[in-house]
């Protein structure tokens, strides 16, 4: 509920700084939700990376962008996107009637490969934390791909922002 309230506040807030702070609060609340849903690993990643690093990145960006009056212009409701969003939302809610019930142990997602991980990972991999076993062993290629994405994003950010600094150095003398 608080998560939804924060998201609604994000709709109405005008100042970009307040919006950035609310994004951090939103991430932290979702981390609390993940704890309630038994996903402790996801919760601390979300709290550290989602709430921490993303907020710092937003503040870094805001520091580099001069504050302008246009950022504080009144936000008005736009009919076209609102209509599209309402129709999509209604269709999605209609579709949920075919989904398995919340917390159902017999849901298709919970009977396929998960029992294998739960029953055999201690013998096959070792650590008591099943998430660690799956992340590092069974789905190690996913993690390798993740590292590739981080590397690419890091190179991209450096290319985008390092460019200006080099030009200033050249112009200075």
């Amino acid at each position, binding site marked *: 509920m608080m*998560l*939804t309230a924060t998201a609604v506040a994000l709709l109405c807030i005008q100042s970009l700084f307040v919006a950035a702070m609310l994004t951090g609060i939103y991430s932290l609340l979702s981390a609390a939700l993940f704890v309630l849903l038994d996903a402790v690993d996801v919760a601390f990643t*979300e709290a550290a990376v989602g709430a921490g*690093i993303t907020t710092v990145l937003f503040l870094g960006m805001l520091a580099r962008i001069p504050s302008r009056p246009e950022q504080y212009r009144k936000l008005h409701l736009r009919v076209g996107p609102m209509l599209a969003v309402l129709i999509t*939302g209604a269709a999605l809610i209609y579709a949920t009637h075919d989904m398995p019930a919340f917390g159902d142990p017999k849901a298709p*997602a919970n009977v396929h490969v998960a029992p294998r991980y739960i029953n055999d990972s201690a013998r096959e991999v070792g650590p008591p934390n099943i*998430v660690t076993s799956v992340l590092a062993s069974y*789905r190690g290629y996913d993690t390798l791909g993740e590292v590739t994405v*981080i590397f690419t*994003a890091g190179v991209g950010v450096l290319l985008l922002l390092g460019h200006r600094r080099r030009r200033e150095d050249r112009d200075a003398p």
Partner: protein
Amino acid sequence: MSWLVHYNYWIVIVLMMIGLYLVMARHILPRKIIGLNVFQTSVFVLFISMGAVNDASAPILAEGITQYANPLPHVLILTAIVVGVSTTSLALALIVRINEAYGTIDEERIHQIDEED
């Protein structure tokens, strides 16, 4: 209460639509990125709530526990969170760069400037 069993999906859909609306309706670029973040987190909640099992414990093996939550969505979302932060950082760097090139972060102003040239 049988009609309430899908409430987790409804919360996810509300969050998702708020994110979608922010992306579609706002033309200040950082607001679009915030919308993307909201959308992204709603997908995280969708996956984790699908992996949740009634009366289950966190997927850490321990004595005396028989029911664990599904660990697979947790792994996928761990990866997704980190990838999401990478894409957000790239998007924010692009905004800084756009602000240097155009002197504005308003999408409509950028289109105007493009048409004037």
